[in-house]
């Protein structure tokens, strides 16, 4: 029963995050919304693993958390430099 409550709470927060992803006036709001959505997916899968009684799903949660992080960094880097291979060419703003 408590897992159902947790899943319901997470789903409602996902609706909020998706609303921000659709509304966001500029790109940074959307990146933030997708990041939050990813973390909520991690939570939803972990909770669902307990609902179903199969905790092997936790490997999946680890991968999600990882992918979420890498995706956010990639997108932020692209938006800053319009180029994902940009590195430390002596430019002090060259690090995010």
């Amino acid at each position, binding site marked *: 029963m408590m897992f159902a409550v947790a899943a319901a709470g997470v789903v409602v*927060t996902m609706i*909020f995050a998706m609303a921000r992803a659709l509304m966001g006036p500029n790109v940074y709001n959307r990146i933030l919304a997708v990041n939050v959505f990813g973390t909520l997916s991690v*939570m939803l899968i972990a909770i669902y693993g*307990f609902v179903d009684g199969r905790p092997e799903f936790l490997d999946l949660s680890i991968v999600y958390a990882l992918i979420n992080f890498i995706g956010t960094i990639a997108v*932020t880097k692209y938006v800053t430099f319009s180029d994902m291979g940009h590195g430390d060419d002596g430019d002090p703003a060259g690090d995010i």
Partner: protein
Amino acid sequence: MEMILDIVSWVLITGGVIFCLIGGYGLISLKDFYARLHAASLIDTFGVGLIFIGLMFQAGFTLVTAKLILILAFIFFTSPTATHALARAAINHDVLPEVDTEEERELVRKTKTTTQGTP
């Protein structure tokens, strides 16, 4: 013993859900991008943390708890880093926070130029 574990889990999970909802509501209704960053971080720390600790009490001392601790540690490391990256990218690209007084506006302008040089 089971009852106590269940009650503790209930309390923690309900607390986690409340924080998630507060963070989500802040994500929609706050008017400034940097304020929304704060709201989102509520979800990433208290939301995930309390719910996962509640789940850990349900799982007991097994491998599942170890994996949950691992995910928590990972999210605690990476979520502030992503927020930091996003905030710096935004301020270097002229997404200005809404501030009321002139001296705060001066501070914002100084922040933008100094983020480029100092460690």
